[in-house]
């Protein structure tokens, strides 16, 4: 009779993560809170910031570290798999080097307030360069989109392959469906990597 190891009850789940990125006050924490099984928690993290040529007279490659507050939550998908959602700040004057954060990430949802697109340019640039699968979610505040999706896509000048979709950060199903779009992009990338 073969010995079948019973699942270890104390074995931790395999963690996976999706980043919820965007500028200040666009609804990142609301997005996390809409789907997380715990109330969003906050951790303070160091981030390396490279200043992007603002008032920089010398040729110094200005790299500094900044402490940022990061909100996060989680969803237990099954006994062996747990999804973490990390709300990551993006600030206009810094191009953050999120290498630590994006390591192993499935992808990212960039939350956008169509009234303040400037806030999300550094984030979009970063994910494009780092080849992180991402979707741009235009947060419809109070269920109202201030701009047409086409206008937002035009203003952000992202590739056609990047989905730009409206969503409601307060609505669990809306957030779930938007995350599923991120996972679709992640699946494309994983299949591509496997074939190569």
């Amino acid at each position, binding site marked *: 009779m073969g010995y079948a190891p019973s699942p270890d009850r*104390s074995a931790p789940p395999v963690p996976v993560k999706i980043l919820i990125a965007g500028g200040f006050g666009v609804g990142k924490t609301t997005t996390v809170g809409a789907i997380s099984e715990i109330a969003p928690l906050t*951790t303070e993290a160091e981030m390396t910031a490279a200043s992007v040529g603002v008032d920089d007279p010398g040729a110094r490659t200005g790299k500094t570290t900044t*402490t940022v507050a990061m909100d996060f939550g989680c969803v237990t*998908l099954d006994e062996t798999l747990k999804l973490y959602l990390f709300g990551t700040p993006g600030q206009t004057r810094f191009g953050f080097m999120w290498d630590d954060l994006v390591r*192993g990430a499935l992808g990212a949802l960039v939350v956008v307030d169509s009234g303040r697109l400037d806030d999300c340019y550094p984030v979009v640039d970063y994910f494009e360069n780092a080849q992180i699968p991402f979707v741009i979610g235009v947060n419809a505040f109070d269920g109202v989109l201030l701009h047409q999706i086409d206008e937002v896509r035009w203003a952000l000048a992202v590739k056609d392959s990047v989905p730009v979709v409206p969503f409601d950060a307060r609505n669990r199903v809306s957030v779930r469906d938007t995350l599923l779009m991120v*996972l679709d992009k*992640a*699946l494309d990338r*994983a299949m591509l990597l496997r074939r190569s």
Partner: protein
Amino acid sequence: MSSPPAREGPAGDAAGRVPPYLRAQLPAVAGQGPDRADAQGVRPFVLTAGRVSGDAADIGLETQVTVRPAGPGGPHVPVASLASELRAIVALCDKPVSVAEISARARLHLEVTKILVGDLWAAGYLDVHAEDLSEFPSPETILRVMHGLRAIS
């Protein structure tokens, strides 16, 4: 009685002749300097004994941590004798918990948390279940995440 008003002026007394950037150091007598024990809060590098990066480089935000069961690989010193921050971390790891959660619940800076978790792992108190984060997740894992998410309503 009190000094004449003129002596309060910037050039009139000893403090006035000290450059502004050094003035803050003037009252640095015993018990008042940065080392005084009653300072509000402890600087992160005090908790980590001055180190800025830990031994366990593979610890990520989502890395799961658990208490190591008693046995040959366990700690030599009882948990009760640890510093309060370390005891708090061990107490949080009763069930599997992520490094980010430890940081938030113990109210410790994330980098500090990583270093302390690495220490507690090295000393035999905790198990760190580090994943290989250098590879992009497999299609199978992603499909499982999608399946799990679709079940949410």
